């Protein structure tokens, strides 16, 4: 009985459109952005584990803002190459570039964490809407591509929630680990988009 159900489940999963989309020869964007966020999220976890050892090298402190700037430049290229949804990609590029700048200012000690969060929290909420409900092209509940896009948006909102909790409760180890692993989750969700979607 159970074996039959498992077999049905595997067959149903196998029918999902894995790598079903096409980019017309151009490389897709989602998995590379996913890899960037998975990489940087992992390094943020390492930063917390390593404590003061991490700060021995200056470039390590600038990895998070640097990754945001790199992702912003990448998104600008996507909005130039991709013929549709230019406004959505440009919005994301603007948020990523501004986020990288603000985080960089915080890391070099020019602004406080509260000032950086004053930008980061609204940016994560807006970014969640842009990549989630607005970018989910397909029937929600019936399209794996739409659902995985929504998952990325929800992860963005969860990250905004973690930041809000940090403002409310103050910085704690648990919240710092939650944010770092949330960035890893953001990367994983973008990789899942590619798994079930394939386009751009």
């Amino acid at each position, binding site marked *: 009985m159970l074996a039959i159900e498992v077999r049905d489940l595997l067959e149903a999963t196998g029918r999902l459109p894995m790598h079903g989309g096409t980019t017309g020869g151009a490389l897709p964007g989602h998995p590379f952005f996913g890899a960037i966020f998975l990489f940087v999220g992992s390094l943020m976890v390492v930063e917390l584990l390593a*404590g003061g050892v*991490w700060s021995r090298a200056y470039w390590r402190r600038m990895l998070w803002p640097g990754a945001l700037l790199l992702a912003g430049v990448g998104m600008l290229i996507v909005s130039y190459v991709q013929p549709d949804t230019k406004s959505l990609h440009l919005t994301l590029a603007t948020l990523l570039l501004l986020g990288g700048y603000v985080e960089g200012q915080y890391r070099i000690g020019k602004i406080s964490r509260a000032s950086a969060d004053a930008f980061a929290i609204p940016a994560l909420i807006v970014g969640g809407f842009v990549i989630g409900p607005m970018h989910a092209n397909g029937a929600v509940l019936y399209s794996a591509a739409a659902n995985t896009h929504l998952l990325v948006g929800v992860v963005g909102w969860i990250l905004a929630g973690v930041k809000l909790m940090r403002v409310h409760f103050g*910085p704690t180890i648990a919240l710092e680990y939650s944010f770092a692993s949330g960035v890893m989750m953001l990367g994983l969700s973008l990789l899942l988009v590619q798994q079930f979607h394939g386009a751009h």
Partner: protein
Amino acid sequence: MSTQLRALLIGMLGPALQAAGVAWDLLEHGVFARSEVGHLTLEHVVSGPAHLMMATGLALSVICIPIALQVATASPEELARPDDITSDEEVAGELQAVPK
């Protein structure tokens, strides 16, 4: 958390990601999409999510294994974070100390 455990977690994060990528790839090509094995494209090899996860794990290992060695030989004072983050035990203690 002990110094050795921190070093172990830092050192194992990259290999763990690589292992997860290998498992994802085996699951995809061995269970879910067996028919695709004969029709692999360069685009899939370069941008396949499981492959990128393995590459991320490899890059992470290159950066993290030297950091793990530094952490293993560091003193507890060196492992303290430069900015002052409150530990959860302290927060819990403060909450308990609030008079009813």
